[in-house]
């Protein structure tokens, strides 16, 4: 897992704290459509299984997974839209 020390500049942040599978991936799917190529999405969640699912989703859908920042129970995922 790629853990980041500080967050990159974000173009859109989506907060899905308290929501669970499969809402995290459905929201990710919707949110990525709302940013332009090259822009960065931040997905804020407390759902631990996102640690496996989000990088895998990026792999399957061909988006660039930049890494995650963990702050207590909150996980912030950073994804760059490349297609």
């Amino acid at each position: 897992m790629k853990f980041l020390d500080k967050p990159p500049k974000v173009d859109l942040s989506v907060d899905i704290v308290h929501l669970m599978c499969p809402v995290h991936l459905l929201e990710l799917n919707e949110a990525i459509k709302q940013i332009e190529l090259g822009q960065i999405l931040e997905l804020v969640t407390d759902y631990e299984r996102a640690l496996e699912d989000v990088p895998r989703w990026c792999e399957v859908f061909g988006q660039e997974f930049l890494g995650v920042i963990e702050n207590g129970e909150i996980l912030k995922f950073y994804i760059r839209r490349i297609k």
Partner: protein
Amino acid sequence: MKRVYLDHMATTPCDPKVVSAMLPFFTEHFGNALSSYDLGVKAREAVEEARVKVANLINAEEREIIFTSGGTEANNFALKGLAYAHQKKGKHIIVSLVEHHSITNPARMLEKEGFEVTFLPVDRYGVIDLNFLEKVLKDETILISVQLANPEVGTLQPLKEIVSLAEKVGAIVHTDAVAAIGQIEVDVQRLGVHALSISAHQFYGPKGVGALYLKKGTRIQPLIYGGIQEGGKRGGTENVPGIVGMGVSAELVKENLSKWKPRMQALRDKLIKGLLERISHIHLTGHPERRLPGHASFIVEFIEGEAMLLMLAMKGIYTSSGSTCTSKALKASPVLSSMGFPAHLIQGSIMFSLGKDTTEEDIDYVLTEMPPIIEKLRELSPFKEGWRDMEKWEESCPHQ
């Protein structure tokens, strides 16, 4: 026998337009709103159309509407869901003493779980004490829940002032608007609240469906976990016919409230004036002006409330002694107790709640039929001797 229904705070009759809109969704369009084939699409579109109508009714965005099984679920969801989601900031919650049980009971449950709950007192009209609220607010306060209107006494609460006070400590404000919708205009932008509960059967829609408005960007923990329905915030296959019905009733209120409101208000005023003139030792409860347009509640001294309700029902007049649930449990109303009424007066409480179809003839019928019933009951009353001894009783009534 003539039937005069004046208990619209308990429930309202479903409008025929609502029923006819719902029916095809039981049979012809029975699909699951999540199914991808045409039957599912039809159901999904109907749910989304209803969401727009409900959002329009309260001036919200459609994505801010979460459908629930009714007002009680919406209230439980707001209290627990918002408390759990924001407990890192603090664990202090404030609710008023005159809230419905679907607010006070989850609040007591949260108290057992380690949250600190402050119950806000009210004045003799049932209005919450804003000075008290200001004093108890602290940085740890995460949630304030105060109803928009009280269903038992009709009093409207100063929500805008509550929201301004809450902003000082960054607390979330929820309001139970179940009694208010269908009686007054409700605009979430003007109120400034973060969450608001509504129930369809209180405004000519079906039972078993309601909604929680949740301002975008406000975190909430689901109460019912399941699938992806309602954006994952409320699992469970959507009650499509119910939601469709709620949409139609929301549209009906939005279009007609400006016509219904002055009519209800005029009839309410006639009822209040008429009963105060015709019956001795009767007192209006709740705020004299800041109250729901279709709400008239009283305390009738020296009689037993349930007997009064039964005798009125025998004449075809349907009313209530307070909250329906409290009445069934034969408990003294906590709302009237909080307003300072002693138990012996509370037992004589009666409330009339008018609706869109209430007529002047209905009110005249009550004004003719009720005074002789009261007279008869007082003759039979064990308080018979006492009620003639006015001095004794006048001391105990805070509304003298």
